[in-house]
């Protein structure tokens, strides 16, 4: 017993006291900012491996961006990645970062039904489905529950059965082979329920967007309640996104 107590003592306090206020240190790449600097727009656009950059005005679509940082390496005067990890939103258009506009990415609170806040505000149980995920978003979703982040303190937990769940968190570009299992899981969750896309692969297909091995048809028929960009998103991005949705 004494040994155990010593171990706990040596480990010290590891949990992050306030997850809504903590910042992730650089060189973490969070929300990008695009200056008004004039650069070779074509070259900037072409350097992006994910076709996330469009021009006139220059903008980065975080639904497609995988935060590789290439644009910022090539055009440091034009693109800068801040360490702002608050990237999740419920409106896909909010994921478009335009040049000269350096505002935060937020949720459109007016679009969230009141019921969501009252029913899930203090207890949210989620079912996770990996549909072709590469195990990186899954890795960070797991980390959300560890002793550092301890998302459970807000009543947010992952559960084993869709019948016990209030929503589904999808990771991966939705492989053809998982499409049906995902639909069955979603149908099994009782209403009101949330549909959450976690990671660039889930939001847009990511680097696999053009692959013939996907089947993203379910996504056309379901209203998405939260987009969590990143490859993978940082646990703080995930947790703050969820909190802003239900609190």
């Amino acid at each position, binding site marked *: 017993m004494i040994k155990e107590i010593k171990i706990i003592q040596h480990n010290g306090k590891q949990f992050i006291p306030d997850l809504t206020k903590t910042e992730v240190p650089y060189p973490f790449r969070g929300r990008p900012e695009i200056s008004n600097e004039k650069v070779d727009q074509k070259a900037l656009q072409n350097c992006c491996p994910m076709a996330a950059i469009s021009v006139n005005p220059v903008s980065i679509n975080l639904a497609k961006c995988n935060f*590789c940082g290439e644009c910022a390496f090539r055009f440091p005067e034009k693109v800068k990645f801040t360490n702002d990890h608050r990237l999740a939103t419920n409106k896909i258009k909010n994921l478009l970062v335009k040049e000269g506009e350096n505002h935060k990415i937020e949720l459109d609170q007016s679009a969230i039904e009141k019921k969501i806040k009252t029913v899930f505000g203090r207890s949210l149980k989620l079912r996770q489905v990996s549909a072709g995920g*590469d*195990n990186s978003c899954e890795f960070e979703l797991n980390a959300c529950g560890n*002793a*550092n982040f301890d998302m459970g303190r807000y009543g947010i937990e992952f559960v084993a059965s869709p019948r016990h769940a209030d929503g589904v968190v999808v990771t991966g570009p939705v492989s053809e082979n998982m499409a049906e299992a995902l639909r069955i899981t979603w149908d099994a969750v009782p209403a009101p329920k949330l549909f959450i896309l976690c990671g660039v692969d889930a939001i847009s297909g990511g680097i*696999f967007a053009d692959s013939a091995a996907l089947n993203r048809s379910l996504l056309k028929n379901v209203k998405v309640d939260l987009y969590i960009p990143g490859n993978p998103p940082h646990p703080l991005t995930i947790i703050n996104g969820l909190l802003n949705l239900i609190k």
Partner: protein
Amino acid sequence: MGSENKKYAVLKNNGSVGTAEIPVLSYNEFSSEVVTLLQKKENHCVTYFAFPEVNGLKFIAGIAEDTNHNIFVLSHFLPETKPQKLESLTPKINALHIFEREIHETHGVDFPGHPWLKPVRFAHNRANKSMKVNDYPFYTIESDELHEVGVGPVHAGIIEPGHFRFICNGENVLHLEIQLGWQHRGVEQTMLEKQTLLQRNIVAESVAGDTTIGHSLAFAGVMESLAGIEIKTQLDVERAVALELERIAVHTADISSLCTDVAYNLGANIFGILRTLIINFTQSWCGNRLGKSMIRVGGTNFPFTNENRIRLFKTLSEYEKQFVELAHLTYRLPSVENRFDDIGTVSEQQALQIGTVGMAARMANVLRDIRATHPSPAYEKYNYTPVVLPKGDVFSRFLLRRKEIKQSIAWLREVMDNEEFLFPSDTPKAELKLKPLSLAISLVEGWRGEICHTALTGNEGKLAYYKIKDPSMHNWKALELSLRNLEISDFPINNKSYNLSYCGFDL
């Protein structure tokens, strides 16, 4: 290049060869050569695949010779006018079973003599599309006494999908069969379809997110080889540092999750916290906790600076102090020992027979470790001594992680004591000109085991074929064997003790 007997080309790890220099053998010669080579204990098959060429299928087999650091590349051509039928080599060399199944699934080639050419992953570009992922032909036993338990594809918890089918006699598992394929995203096809180097690099990073460094290193290895770029040893050392950090991080997390499964909360929590230390270091180096964007071809955007070195020293000593204290207690707990000891044993003979690699081999007395047997320049300069354990049970897999963490830390310390990171490494190459009509193979010892990437170029140096092999390709079979004659409730600890990749297998 050419070997004396001219039956095969001989490569070193990360080497390349003109495809014209690989002798094309008749299937008779090819199979007798492959079988003769693989009957020697020092050899094992690292890759075996077929790809379409004009008028037929070209077969490539890569056989690694561990004693002399060689990789033999053998080839064979099957014209489309001939019956698409080749005598199976699996009865002689069991480890080839999965490769033949894969070739059968992709190209429709029949292998008479193969015990059962089951689908591997229901790949989108499979030859026979009439069979869907739900139609997998499971092995069954007719009996009134037995029952089957099916689990998945969606599991309890945050974990990738796969279907496990147990045949049980009461609580006792007679047979477990694992069906994968749910995660198939068309990785190899995407690799060919994407045109820029960076896009392909990102595909490699996405093969398996928990092995981001491992797979992207293998990718960089084949690309640099095909482009004829010699990277500086210092860059290879920096990459190996990232690789060892990935190993330490995942091993620590696996120890933590094994503690969870025996309800040892102190271990589960604190090992989990210790992993955070390591991945946060990786983030402070490259901006991403999993090392995405760290590995680029021909150079790096995140040189390992002296400041990194100082911080890594600090991180490691903080980690090690706590790890040792906790491990000292955990590994002696009677409740842990009782639960893990003598359970889920895979014998040395079985491990060899099914061709296990990496940890799944080393826990069963089989030395398979690319860092020692086919070292990259970093491991040539700073030798790594593999850890091998004799027993092959859950406890061995649990213990192996602890020992490998210790070994990796010692290796990292040696590097940081001796390597002078005076000049920052080069920046990455934007585009490459690849040698035309060539083949390159890269082997990397990821934390799970041997990763093999093979790339072939066509005329004008265009990428013609890309083959990826995750260690899980072999090792899932070991989990199936582990479960025989255990109770079904022993599945979770066995599963976690391997922690195999679904997406790396499904591609």
